């Protein structure tokens, strides 16, 4: 019989993030499928009451909480102490948590402390008889494994974008507050701020329908023997603005930017998609001036509809990697697309 614990931190406003609410859906579904299982919630943060009330209708037996100023910031020492105390207090065998940056940093160490194991990048979860099976990717989205394990407690970090956002009834919860044994000192690390990668424009929009990828071709010499970087900047920013798209880049593109050449001023390492970049989730993706090599395309695993613009009809996208390849000059075509989008 699994004692399921849904575990997360709250946000600065005391509420829960989108991925936290999606993961709650997965936890509720799993507890319904697994006969004899129990579901508890555990929250920690500077404040937890808003979050506890918001999810009070999810059918959990109990809500546990850790709260206080010292738990407001995303910091390993205090987060790990809080999560450890909550897992122990719930006597959990199966811990489900959203894959936020904060939990991804915290939970592996917590799993070790409580003698458990952890799996991350979990994309599917279900009951199999008395037990649980999960699905997760290996080799950067190249292989999908279905697996189970015998060790408990078993922690899983659930990736974003897979489950519906939980939107059941709010209520009023009275969390059972759990004491935390904080290490001394617990605050050798101080969070001093949050920074955008580049100040000019917020180009990464995880909730956008469309991903626009700019490859190194945008900054290379064009048919007239010249580079046209300023034009490229205008066209790309114009497109992002009218299509409300999120901006991705190829490795070659972001590395040029990092090396300070005459390149797209708003492109940073955080925009990189692929093997050593991100694997964003969007309904559609449009690749421009990007060759579509395998280390780039592994980052497109969760982009459903894919189109590409490239002057080369034999580029990687033509090799069954895109649904449609437009063999065209991306400068001219993007200009026309922008005109139509604005019109």
């Amino acid at each position, binding site marked *: 019989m699994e004692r399921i614990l849904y575990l997360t931190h709250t946000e600065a406003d005391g509420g829960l993030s989108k991925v936290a609410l999606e993961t709650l859906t997965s936890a509720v579904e799993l507890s319904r499928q697994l006969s004899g299982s129990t579901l508890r919630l555990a929250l920690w943060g500077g404040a937890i009451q808003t979050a506890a009330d918001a999810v009070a209708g999810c059918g959990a037996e109990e809500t546990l909480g850790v709260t206080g100023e010292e738990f407001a910031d995303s910091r390993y020492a205090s987060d790990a102490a809080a999560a450890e105390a909550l897992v122990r207090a719930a006597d959990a065998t199966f811990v489900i948590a959203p894959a936020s940056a904060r939990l991804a940093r915290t939970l592996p*160490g917590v799993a070790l402390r409580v003698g458990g194991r952890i799996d991350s990048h979990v994309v599917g979860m279900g009951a199999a008889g008395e037990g649980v099976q999960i699905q997760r990717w290996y080799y950067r989205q190249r292989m999908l494994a279905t697996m189970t394990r015998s060790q408990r407690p078993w922690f899983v970090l659930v990736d974003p974008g897979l489950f519906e956002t939980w939107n059941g009834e709010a209520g009023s919860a009275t969390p059972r507050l759990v004491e935390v044994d904080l290490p001394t000192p617990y605050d050798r*690390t101080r969070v001093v*701020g949050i920074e955008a990668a580049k100040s000019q424009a917020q180009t990464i929009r995880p909730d956008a329908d469309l991903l626009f990828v700019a490859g190194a071709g945008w900054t290379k010499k064009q048919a007239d023997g010249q580079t046209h970087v300023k034009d490229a900047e205008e066209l790309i920013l114009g497109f992002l603005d009218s299509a409300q798209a999120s901006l991705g880049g190829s490795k070659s593109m972001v590395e040029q930017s990092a090396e300070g050449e005459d390149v797209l001023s708003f492109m940073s390492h955080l925009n990189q998609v692929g093997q050593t970049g991100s694997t964003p989730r969007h309904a559609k993706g449009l690749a421009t001036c990007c060759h579509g090599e395998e280390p780039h395309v592994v980052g497109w695993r969760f982009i459903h509809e894919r189109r590409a613009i490239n002057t080369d009809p034999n580029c990687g996208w033509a090799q069954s990697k895109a649904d449609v390849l437009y063999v065209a000059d991306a400068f001219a075509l993007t200009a026309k697309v922008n005109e139509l989008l604005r019109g």
Partner: protein
Amino acid sequence: MSQGFHLVVCGSIVPDPLQTLEPIQGAEGPALKNEMMLPAVLDPWAGHALYEAAHLAAATPDSKVWLVSLGPRAKLQQLMMTIAPKAAFELVALDGPAGGFTEAWETAEALAECIKTIPGLDRSRLLLFGGCASASRDAGVTMQMVGERLEISDQFLAVDELTPQENGTIRILERIEAGRYQVSECAGPPLVAAWATGRLPEPPNNAQLGMQNMRSIMPALQKAQPARVGAEGVEFLEVEVPKQRRNTRVVEDASVDEMAREIVEWIRK
């Protein structure tokens, strides 16, 4: 700073990302077809960690870098030929499997136990580096568990910048959601930094450095202790390569106006 850093970088081999990978059922669970024959590279994010470590050590007197690698000895030896000319480090090798289907918990145990025995390592000066995830298991959990085993309670994941300050504190930028950074200040070592791409390009080859490194690398490989790393308690029910071939429609003869109209229709759909 009166004392430099002791930088330990955990990093091993992964198949070259340009290779096609195919899962097979091995004697002890899933494995890759021709795993031992596949060309291997230094795990990319761990590579960034190594270059950042070497850079930091060069800028901080009295510092030293160790690279702790768990992998099949013969493959490690091949790998060392390519990375020895790029960064100054002392290799500490463990001979064992480096495939993706091994368990992070077991790998972390082997790495931590090995780090505890490094002669001359001062753990109060330790900056424990590694990649934020491997290109094989891609779990992003190993470094935190190594850190826990070494009782380090200041940990950072997906680091792009780590800068020692004049007052002895260390300023760290970690990637968080939506293309932003969390900026933290840590009182000083010991700490764990699991790196994303960092800020440095891959260093050029330096043949002299390579020869100097190889002098300690060969004995380290000979001394490599066997590490029994598997996936105890895990049952893989299926491992598949999802079909992702698309019937690409190549639009070549249409005008720019026609293509633009089609793209806009698709975006608005």
